[in-house]
């Protein structure tokens, strides 16, 4: 009974999200809302402003460097939590 309920709930979620998919901006179009001034500046000025040919490196470490500091911290907190758990018991 509970399994059936969960199953129906998930089918419902899937259907709702599929309806959303039908309405989304078409995949791969150059005119989508995401292709605005933000990636444009990254692509055009990354060499000049960060010196990195790989724009992704430029973004993760320079433009959005604080995210990556957080990311390194996530790794650190995971290892701290895992080690303390393993040592505690």
């Amino acid at each position, binding site marked *: 009974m509970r399994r059936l309920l969960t199953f129906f709930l998930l089918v419902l979620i899937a259907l709702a999200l599929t309806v959303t998919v039908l309405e989304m901006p078409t995949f791969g179009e150059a005119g989508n809302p995401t292709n605005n001034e933000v990636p444009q500046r990254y692509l055009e000025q990354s*060499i000049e*402003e*960060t*010196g*990195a*040919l*790989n724009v*992704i*490196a*430029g973004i*993760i*470490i*320079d433009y959005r*460097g*604080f995210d*990556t*500091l957080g*990311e*390194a*911290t996530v*790794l*650190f907190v*995971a*290892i701290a939590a*895992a*080690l303390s758990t*393993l*040592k505690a*018991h």
Partner: protein
Amino acid sequence: MEDLIVRYVSRIVVPFVQLFGLYVVFHGHLSPGGGFSGGAIIGASMILYALSFNLAAGTKKVSHDLSLILESSGGLIYAGVGLAAIFLGANFLGNKVAGIPLGTPGNLFSSGTIMIITLGVGIKVASTMITLFYSLIEGEQKTDEHC
């Protein structure tokens, strides 16, 4: 895993994998890759070495104290670079605005702090992967006795 073929193959493969990992880390700002993927490759190669020989040999290569230091130093390098930018008059994590020379784009030693941070992150990720794997495998062998 006390298999001759596995040992020989891993002895041959591991240096190349590590070399590739170093390449990925150092060329993070020029080609696909970077600190995270390169660090993971190096970490995986160390784990492969440890698995194909035995754990003691692997542990000898990276002792616990060393991995502890590496672990912290990766994050400290990152935060240190960020704080250095403050001392140079820019905001936290500034690169060009802080007056750090960017070098010629395309060279290995270019792009200011990106290079340093990539290296720090690579060290950190590699040591994290190794430490996690070891602590999962061996951490509780000790505690098994008194549990």
